[in-house]
């Protein structure tokens, strides 16, 4: 524990120092929002990657791979191809141009300015700020689960400790030099994952041997999973089975596509000087993500081999503690603390802290600017004092909401909570965001309707139809007496995104074709237009 405190102190000092360096370059509240414009491609690539990947991906989704196997690698492909390549080359460059055209520093401002609607700006800022603590809580739980396992700490205590670290981090300026600190944390994460994959393969007899051992464990797949369509730990589930829908529709599609409409990532495109920087950042971003989720999902699946060789269990049965049921959130923390040498714990702890902090700072930064800039300060005027106070208030509100949500959430939650936020962003904002970038004809009324239909349909399905989500909130159970309006029919295990995103796209296209196109002569002006 003493070593932990010393390492934590050094970590906070380094991030505070980097924060101070960033702060010195922060001259106005615009700089606070986008952190200046001159950034090295390594810093840009790593900062984007570190904000994208958190303990949610490593511990939450890695744990899901422990239960469901290597089919999760399709998410790694989506993370890199969609989340980095498509995002940088197609979305990033156009977004940067649009951001400069309107002088927009945030995603809600960009959408509101393009469609000349302050309603779009307010609704998007409010909706994302209200649901984002769910994702931030998932990140926090991921960190707390590793603290719990590595330092043999009570889970509630671990959550408290992590909350205090987050508060200290934010207080010492973690949001100030956010780009530099994130690149530093991304580097820590990269080294951590490199160590984890080397130790894992070495422990299990090498790459080919480890994979072959996992493929030979098909007879150990739990009967309930076999019934849902799972075929093995190193094979794909039966096409269109319940297990296939969970892995492909909720996890791969939800997060794979949802990444394109993440407000804390989109703000990164607004920070680069030209499209050239995005091309260069690609070199670092793609490899970084391969080592993040590629390693996490492979190690998660291979943990089954380790647990079986050491205790005749699989990841699912190994994650049962006391009277609690199996918990995906415990698989990676248990594997790391049991399979890797104990002298590595502290470095792993540092790497996972970096993973959590770099993402949470982006999340809190978004909530903070939503409140101070998009919801309450809707002018481009640089009223620094008021903006700064509102930004601090937004920060505290976001932090308090996240801690509260983290305490209320059950086990097996990290990946699900994350996919809800990603899916909701995709269903609500992706059609009109893509329209703003590539379809000059797209209309304001189409954007508003598509956003409302997408977000409301997603929330309805999430709360009342999709059993995995609705059972978290308990609203359907309280109102209609069962977890899903669809009973146990196929709608009860098909992700809300499968319904909400296509509907939102259709509404956007049809209404655009039926309505008046946007005025293409939009001028660079403060946003005062109402609905």
């Amino acid at each position, binding site marked *: 524990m003493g070593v932990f405190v010393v390492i934590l102190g050094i970590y906070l000092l380094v991030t505070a120092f980097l924060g101070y360096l960033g702060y010195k370059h922060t001259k106005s509240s615009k700089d606070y929002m986008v952190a200046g414009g001159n950034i090295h491609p390594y810093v840009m690539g790593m900062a984007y990657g570190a904000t994208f990947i958190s303990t949610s991906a490593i511990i939450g989704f890695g744990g899901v791979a422990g239960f469901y196997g290597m089919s999760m690698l399709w998410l790694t492909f989506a993370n890199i191809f969609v989340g*980095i*390549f498509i995002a940088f080359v197609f979305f990033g460059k156009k977004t940067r141009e649009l951001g400069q055209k309107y002088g927009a520093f945030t995603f809600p401002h960009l959408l509101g300015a393009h469609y000349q609607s302050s309603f779009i700006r307010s609704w998007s800022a409010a909706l994302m700020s209200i649901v984002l603590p769910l994702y931030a809580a998932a990140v926090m739980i991921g960190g707390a689960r590793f603290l719990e396992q590595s330092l043999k700490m009570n889970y509630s205590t671990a959550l408290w400790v992590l909350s205090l670290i987050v508060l200290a981090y934010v207080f010492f300026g973690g949001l100030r030099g956010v780009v530099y600190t994130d690149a530093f944390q991304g580097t820590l994460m990269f080294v951590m994952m490199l160590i984890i994959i080397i130790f894992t393969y070495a422990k299990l007899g090498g790459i080919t041997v480890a*994979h072959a051992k996992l493929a030979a464990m098909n007879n150990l797949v739990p009967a309930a999973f076999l019934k849902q369509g799972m075929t093995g730990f*190193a094979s794909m589930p039966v096409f269109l089975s319940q297990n296939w829908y969970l892995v492909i529709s909720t996890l791969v599609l939800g997060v794979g596509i949802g990444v394109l409409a993440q407000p804390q990532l989109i703000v990164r495109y607004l920070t680069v000087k030209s*499209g050239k920087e995005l091309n260069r950042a*690609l070199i670092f*971003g*793609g490899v970084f993500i391969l080592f993040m989720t590629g390693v996490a999902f492979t190690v998660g699946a291979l943990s089954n081999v380790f647990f079986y060789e050491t205790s005749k269990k699989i990841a699912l049965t190994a994650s049962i503690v006391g009277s609690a049921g199996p918990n995906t959130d415990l698989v990676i923390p248990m594997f790391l603390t049991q399979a890797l040498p104990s002298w590595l714990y502290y470095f792993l702890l540092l790497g996972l802290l970096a993973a959590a902090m770099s993402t949470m700072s982006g999340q809190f930064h978004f909530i903070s600017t939503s409140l101070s800039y998009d919801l309450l300060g809707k002018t481009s005027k640089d009223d620094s004092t008021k903006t700064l106070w509102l930004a601090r208030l937004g920060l505290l509100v976001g932090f308090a909401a996240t801690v509260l949500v983290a305490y209320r959430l059950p086990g097996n939650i990290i990946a699900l909570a994350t996919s809800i936020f990603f899916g909701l962003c995709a269903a609500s904002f992706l059609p009109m965001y893509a329209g703003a970038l590539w379809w000059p004809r797209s209309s304001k009324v189409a954007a508003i309707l598509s956003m409302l239909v997408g977000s409301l349909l997603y929330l309805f399905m999430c709360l009342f139809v999709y059993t995995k989500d609705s059972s978290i909130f308990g609203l359907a159970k309280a109102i209609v007496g069962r977890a899903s309006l669809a009973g146990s029919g196929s709608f009860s295990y098909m992700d809300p995104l499968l319904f909400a995103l296509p509907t939102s796209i259709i509404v956007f296209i049809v209404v655009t074709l039926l309505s008046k196109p946007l005025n293409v002569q939009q001028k660079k002006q403060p946003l005062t237009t109402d609905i």
Partner: protein
Amino acid sequence: MLGLTDPGVIAAYLLSIGSALLCVVYGLINWNNE
């Protein structure tokens, strides 16, 4: 391949590595392009 036999998983494995390489190659080729 590498101890894996399921074509779906092998495809995901190769596509993941291929996408990361695509990012590197695209970035290097377009180092000075907008």
